[in-house]
C-alpha cells in the first residue's frame, strides 16, 4: 500500500482544552453555587437597582457585576443560573439521546417493518414547525423547567434518531456483524455488544452538541416569555429581562449573554473535537 497518510497533530487541541476547562469550571460553579455566590440571587432591594459593575463609576463593590432593575446581584444570579442551564442541558440532552438513539438503533439494525414504522414516525414528527410546536406544548403544560426539557426532547429527538439509524445501518452491513451472526450470537446480543460500541462515539458527539442546543433553546423560549415561571434565575430569562433596559443597564444582558455564549461555544467545540477524534477518515 502507499505510504501511510501522515497523522497531523490537530491544532484544535488548544480549543478542545479551553472548552473542556470552561465546562469543568461550570460544573464546579453549579455544584458549589451557594458557597461561591456572594449574595442570595433572589434577595431584592428596590433602592439598589441597576448598579453598574464594580469598575464603573457609581458602583457598589459588593455587587461585582452590578444589579438588575430589582436590585438583585447579577453575578449570583449567573452562578445559580448555571445550575439550571447545566441541568436543562444534561437532562434534556440525555433524554433526547436515549429516545432518539434507541429508536435509531432499532430502525437501523432490524430494518423491515420496524424501520418503516420508526421512519414514518420521524417524518410525521419532523413535519411539525419546531418553535411553534414548543410554544403550543408549553401552553399545554404551562411554562417551567419540565416543559423546557420536554420541548427540547420533542423537537430534537428526531435528529438523533436519523443520524444513529444511518450509522446503525452502515455498521450492520459491516463484515464483523456477519461473522458475529455466524458465531451464533443472537441479533439483540449483536446489537448491544457489536453495533452499540461502534455507534457510541457518534452518540457522544451528538450528546455534546445537543447540550449546547438545549442551552440556546432555553434562551429562545425565555425570549418568547415561556421559560421558567418561578423566581429562579436562568441566563435566558436574564437576557430577555435585560433587553428592555439595554441602554441603561447593559450589564444585565451582556454578562449572562457572554456566559451563555461561552458555554454553547464550548459544547460545540468539544463536540467537533470529539468528532475529529472518532471520525475514521481523519483518525
Amino acid at each position, binding site marked *: 500500500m502507499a505510504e501511510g*497518510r501522515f497523522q497531523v497533530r490537530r491544532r484544535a487541541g488548544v480549543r478542545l482544552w479551553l472548552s473542556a476547562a470552561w465546562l469543568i469550571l461550570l460544573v464546579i460553579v453549579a455544584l458549589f453555587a451557594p458557597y461561591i455566590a456572594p449574595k442570595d440571587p433572589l434577595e431584592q432591594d428596590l433602592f439598589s437597582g441597576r448598579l453598574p459593575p464594580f469598575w464603573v463609576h457609581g458602583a457598589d463593590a459588593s455587587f461585582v457585576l452590578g444589579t438588575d432593575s430589582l436590585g438583585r446581584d447579577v453575578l449570583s444570579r449567573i452562578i445559580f443560573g448555571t445550575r439550571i442551564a447545566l441541568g436543562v442541558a444534561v437532562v434534556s440532552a440525555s433524554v433526547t439521546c436515549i429516545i432518539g438513539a434507541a429508536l435509531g438503533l432499532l430502525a437501523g439494525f432490524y430494518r423491515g417493518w420496524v424501520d418503516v414504522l420508526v421512519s414514518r414516525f420521524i417524518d410525521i414528527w419532523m*413535519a411539525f*414547525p419546531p418553535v*411553534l410546536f414548543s410554544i403550543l406544548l408549553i401552553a399545554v403544560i404551562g411554562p417551567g423547567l419540565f416543559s423546557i426539557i420536554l420541548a427540547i426532547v420533542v423537537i430534537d429527538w428526531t435528529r438523533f434518531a436519523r443520524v444513529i439509524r444511518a450509522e446503525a445501518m452502515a455498521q450492520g452491513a459491516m463484515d464483523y456483524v456477519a461473522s458475529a451472526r455466524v458465531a451464533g450470537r443472537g441479533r439483540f446480543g449483536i446489537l448491544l455488544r457489536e453495533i452499540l460500541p461502534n455507534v457510541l462515539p457518534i452518540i457522544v458527539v451528538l450528546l455534546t452538541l445537543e447540550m449546547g442546543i438545549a442551552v440556546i433553546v432555553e434562551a429562545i423560549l425565555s425570549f418568547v416569555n415561556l421559560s421558567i415561571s418561578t423566581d429562579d434565575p436562568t441566563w435566558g430569562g436574564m437576557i430577555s429581562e435585560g433587553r428592555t433596559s439595554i441602554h441603561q443597564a447593559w450589564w444585565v444582558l451582556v454578562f449572562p449573554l457572554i456566559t451563555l455564549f461561552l458555554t454553547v461555544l464550548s459544547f460545540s467545540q468539544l463536540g467537533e473535537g470529539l468528532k475529529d477524534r472518532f471520525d475514521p*477518515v481523519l483518525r
Partner: protein
Amino acid sequence: MALLQTLLLRMITTAVTLLGVAVIVFFVIRVVPGNPIAMMLPPGATAEDIATLTAIYGLDKSIPQQFLIWAGGVLQGDFGTSITLKQPVLALVLGRLPATLELSVLALGMAILIGGAAALTGTRLRETRVEGGIDIAQGVALSVPDFLWGLVLILVFGVLVPVFQISGRVTPSLQLPFVTDFYLVESVVRLRFDLTLDLLSHMLLPALALAIPLAAIIGQLLKQSLKETMHLDYVTLARTQGYSEAKVIWSQALPNAILPTLTLVGVQFTFLIGGTVIIERLFSYEGLGNMAIDAVINRDLPLIQGIVILFAVIFTGVNLLVDLTYAALNPRLRHG
C-alpha cells in the same frame, strides 16, 4: 418504471404523514387550556353568553365530531374560518406563505453563499490560522441564538448606521402593481428593480439573522465533506495534471462534496421556515410565523390547524425535492 413506483410509494407515505399531523394537531390544540371563547368573555357576560358563543364557533361538539366536520370541509378546500381574523383560513395562510417562503429562500441563498465561501476558503487555506479563524467564527455563529443576531443587526444597521429597513416587508407608501403575493419574484419579473431593492432593503436584515446560524452549519458540513474528498486520488491526479489548487477544489472536489451536504440543507431549510417565527416577530415581517404566534396566543384553533398542516405540506414537499435533486445529481443513481 422503478421511478414511477417509488414516486407512487412516496405519495402514499406523504399522505399518511399529513393525515397523522392533522389528527395529532387537531386533538392537541383542543386539549390546550384557555379556549378562545373564554378570551372573548367581556365584563358581565353570563353563563348563557358563554354557551351561545361556544355554539356559534362549533366548539360545543365532541372533539371527534369537530374533526369530522373539519375534515369534511378540508376535502372541499374549506379549512374553516379564523376566529380572530374572521377570514377563511386557507386564504389567510396562502396569503402569508409567500412572504415566509421568499424570506427563507433568500436566507438559504445567503447561507449557501456565506457557508460555501467559508468552506472553500477553509479548505483552500486548511491547516492555517485562517481555517482556525473560520472555525471559531462558525462556532460563534452557532453559539448565539438567532434572535440576538436579529437584535444586533437592528441596533447596528437600523439605528446606528440606518442603511437598511428594520420592520415590515415593503415601504407602505409604494404602489405595488403585484398580482401574486410573491412580491420579490414578481418585482423582478416585472423588471421593477426599484421595488426589488426596496423589498430587499426590508428583507436583508431578517434574512441575514436567519442565515448566520445556517451558514455556519452549511460551512462546517461542506468543509468536512470537502476535506474528505480532497484525500481521494482523482484530486491528486488533477494536481499532477497541472491544475491549480483552487481549480482542483472547485471543479473536482466540490461537485462530489456537495451531495452529502445537500440532504442536510433540505432538512435545515424546513427548520428555517419553522424557525422564522421569532425573527418575523422581531422584524414585524408579515409572514406565516408572525401570524402563527398570534394564533397560538389567542387560541385561534382553526388558524393554528391550518398553519401546522401547511408547514407539514412544505416539509414533505421540500423532502421530495431534495431527494429528486439528489438522484438527479448523483450519476450512480441516475444510471444505476
